């Protein structure tokens, strides 16, 4: 599925991914292939992007935001997102 992470200042991430974990307002959740249409608010926390099944990961710390899933396309709108360097 396709993932896009947008901030007011720039496009933070764009590409094909296996799945993505997000800090939903009522608890963390994960979106995988062919997820049902969804609109959710996000709270402060960390987004975990699973680029493929081999544990290639990317992390972003966010303040707040929204996510929309439709037609296998995930759009995350966040304010105050910082990419996290993984060791």
């Amino acid at each position, binding site marked *: 599925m396709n993932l*896009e992470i*947008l*901030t*007011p*200042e*720039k*496009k933070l991430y764009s590409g094909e991914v296996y799945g993505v974990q997000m800090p*939903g*307002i*009522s608890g963390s959740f994960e979106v995988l292939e062919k997820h*049902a*249409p*969804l*609109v*959710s*608010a996000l709270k402060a926390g960390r987004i975990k992007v699973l680029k493929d099944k081999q544990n290639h990961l990317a992390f972003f710390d966010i303040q707040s935001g*929204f996510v*929309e899933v*439709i037609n296998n396309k995930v*759009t995350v*709108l966040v*304010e*105050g997102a910082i990419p996290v360097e993984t060791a």
Partner: protein
Amino acid sequence: MAGQLKEVRNRIKSVQSTQQITKAMKMVSAAKLRRAQDAIIQMRPYARKLQEMLSNIVSNSEGEVGMSLAAERPIENVLFIVITSDRGLAGAFNANVIKLANATIAEKYAAQHKKGNVAIWNIGKKGYEFFLKNNYKADATYKDIFLHLTFENVQKAAQAAMKAFEEKQFDVVEIVYSQFKNAATQKFEVERFLPIPKVAKKAGAVKADFIYDPSKEELVKELMPKILNTQLYKAVLDSNASEHGARMTAMDKASENANEMLRSLKISYNRARQAAITTELTEIVSGAAALQG
């Protein structure tokens, strides 16, 4: 004669050095303009998607979605957010923004202004200086946003305005800014910030069985402030780009005028030089003739 020559030469030198400055300023503005335009382009996908989400939710829900930020009240207190630049030498850029703000106050909110109920939040130093001098209620809290132009800083101003609106300190909030068209043209605009207009349902919106978390109403409540943040951010970015565009054009014009001036100065310089030579020649020739005679 020789004195006049020297004078003209000095003028030429001074015009040349002025022209150097205006040319440099034009180049700097051109570079800054590019960056400002980039920022606008970077923000667009975010703003578009946010709007899309909102209209999707509204279109998929039945009935009205009401909220406190959309409350229309009798207008007692007015807030203007006036976005100017920090620096001058940008042609009529700042003057036009200020003029528009003044005209709008005189036209729409004259009664409130008489009672001293029109407050002005300034973004940018030039506007602040003007409104302070002319006895408006000018607030400098957000004056220096352009020093560090980030979304976060702009957001603070937007949130403060929303809070003041919800606490009924202001019944209407307007933004006066300059919309960026292209490098040479700006469109000066007054935009309603609060209360927000009702969101229209769109026929073309995506119809799907969305899972909403939290409820639709809650989501709209969360989305609205974000959209307002983005709206103010966009206005600030537009103003920034406009400022550099305006300065670029102004400096280009100034360099051109300097060229024109140099040309006419050079003509008078050469004329004076020739006149001096002719006089000298005549003196020598007549001197020689007197000796021979």
